[in-house]
């Protein structure tokens, strides 16, 4: 079976003024359904670019990228939006919740763009919030929630559309240790129990340790690809 994510010689080249920046230089990568992958590397190593690309926010300059058998490299913007809506969930370092909008409505957002009925949007969003332990906080605004809670709303939002892959870009970067553990615990459980593929970008080794596969990037290339037994978290 072909992998969920298949990259063949993917390049991403930017032009900043007269200077050509090669952010990705020939990435070859296959990620299977159900994997928990940590992408590590120093800043400027290309890990964020890779994540944007895999997350269908961006397209490669050249090379092939297939997501679930679909050619992303040549897809039109609306198809990319459709892919992000149905296949992908994002969790960002700074949460990126819509301000002054309730937790429930934030969690509804992917379904909103899917054209689901309002009633169904609310039902599924409430279930998703319950899943991350925020039952009873549906009507809270992001500003009324702690960082950890906000990140859990973001996870609820990412989950609500039942995506195949969850991208987490430094999800614990703005959180204290206790909250970080909670968030990683949720991600680990989603991976283990629901079989959601998780791609985690981080520069913290102890966060990366939750993953079962570790990619290390340097100068736009994957320099190390290690599979290992995940260190089981301190959830228990």
């Amino acid at each position, binding site marked *: 079976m072909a992998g969920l994510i298949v990259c063949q010689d993917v390049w991403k080249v930017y032009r900043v003024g007269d200077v050509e920046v090669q952010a990705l230089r020939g990435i070859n990568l296959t990620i299977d359904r159900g994997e928990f992958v940590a992408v590590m590397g120093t800043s400027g190593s290309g890990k964020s670019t890779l994540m*944007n690309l895999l*997350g269908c*926010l*961006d397209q490669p300059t050249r090379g092939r990228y297939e997501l679930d058998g679909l050619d992303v490299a040549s897809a039109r*913007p*609306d198809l990319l*939006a*459709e892919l*992000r*809506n*149905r296949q992908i969930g*994002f969790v*960002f370092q700074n949460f*990126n*919740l*819509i*301000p*002054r909008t309730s937790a429930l409505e934030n969690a509804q*957002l*992917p379904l*909103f*763009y*899917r*054209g*689901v*009925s*309002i009633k169904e*949007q609310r039902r599924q969003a409430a279930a998703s919030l319950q899943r991350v332990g925020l039952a009873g906080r549906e009507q809270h605004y992001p500003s009324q929630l702690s960082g950890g809670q906000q990140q859990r709303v973001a996870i609820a*939002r990412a989950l609500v*559309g039942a995506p195949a892959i969850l991208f987490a870009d430094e999800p614990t970067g703005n959180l204290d240790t206790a909250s970080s553990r909670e968030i990683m615990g949720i991600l680990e459980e989603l991976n283990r129990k629901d079989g959601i593929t998780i791609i985690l970008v981080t520069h913290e080794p102890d966060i990366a340790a939750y993953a079962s596969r570790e990619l290390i990037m340097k100068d736009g290339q994957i320099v190390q690809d290690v599979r290992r037994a995940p260190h089981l978290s301190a959830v228990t």
Partner: protein
Amino acid sequence: MSAFVLLTVMTALRILSRNRLRAGLTMLGIVIGVGAVIAMVSIGQGARAAVQAQVASMGTNVIVIMPGSTTVSGVRGGQGGAVTLTVNDAAEMKKRNPLLSDTAWAKRDVMQIVNGNRNWNGPVNGVSPSYLTIRDWSFSSGGPFTQSDMESAARVALIGQTTLENLFDPGEEAVGATIRIKNVPFQIIGVLAPKGQSAQGSDQDDVIFVPFTTAERKVFGSQFLGSVGALFASTEQTADLPEAVEHIREVLRARHRLQPDQADDFTVRTQVDIGKVQEGTSQTLTAMLFAIASVSLLVGGIGIMNILLVSVTERTKEIGVRMAVGAKRMHILTQFLIEAMTLSLFGGVIGVIVGVAGASLTTVIAGWPTIISVESIATACVFSLVVGLFFGLYPANKAARLNPIDALRYE
């Protein structure tokens, strides 16, 4: 899609209500524009209706024929200077023109009218009985004189409201009283119902009517018996007026023995002509209203565009998030367009309220008649929506074309 639109409208309302002052100031241009237009249209339509009522007070489908000017040794006498129209002209017109339902004639002069120890100088009109029906005069008490009064040159008179007020005490019974016109005693047999100002602005109620024959034999002392000040005619249908006018001209030209190269020695006017002058005035008013509306809606629209551009910049990150979770360009475009249209429609609705209030206030304070029409309100609302759509397109398109990564990174 409908769930999307509904939620987007709700979101737009919430975003606008969060920034009430900003939304209010943004809408102000539209509010003022729409308000001014609604108020002015109401006042304009009220004024127009008043003018139309005045024109109608002349009577229905009336044709007025005035004598032309005379030229004596190169001195031109001005309109009505000639005494070319006669009672016989009227009879002939009636006989030869089946389109005319009635004809009448009148001659007027300003005379002193005396009642006991009070006097008044006002126009005295010698008229044929048909004049009263053609000009739609009705009575508040008493009644008209008849053909037999006319034939016997009876000394009977009809009195208008203004003249009545000047000659009689309030509440004093005028019908049956005797007044003197140029020392000739006349018995008042009818008091006319008020008509108010004419389309030309003169007081139509300052008037005395006496039978034409009585006037020319006993009061005016006419040089030529049967010469009249003006002829009147009426048709059943307004549509018949132009043809009737043409026919009247032919008859009169033949009777006056005018050569083809000679100009008419009379003037024929109809209510339609008088109405045209009023129409010209209201067209000018409409053009001015249109100019004001265009300018204020343009200014209002630019205000909306400006605030939307600010909003797009402020909410760049939100747009990025929406795109990341799967919003297509169309979704973002629609969202901002709906916000723009909500703003402009709200502005329009408030403008309508302000305009209606302004118009009502004008009626109360200045006493001008106003008419608030449903059409103008509907047009104002549709127009403000269109303004929102038009001026929202550029900012909305700008938002929809953002690159999701750049939008997400925007701080």
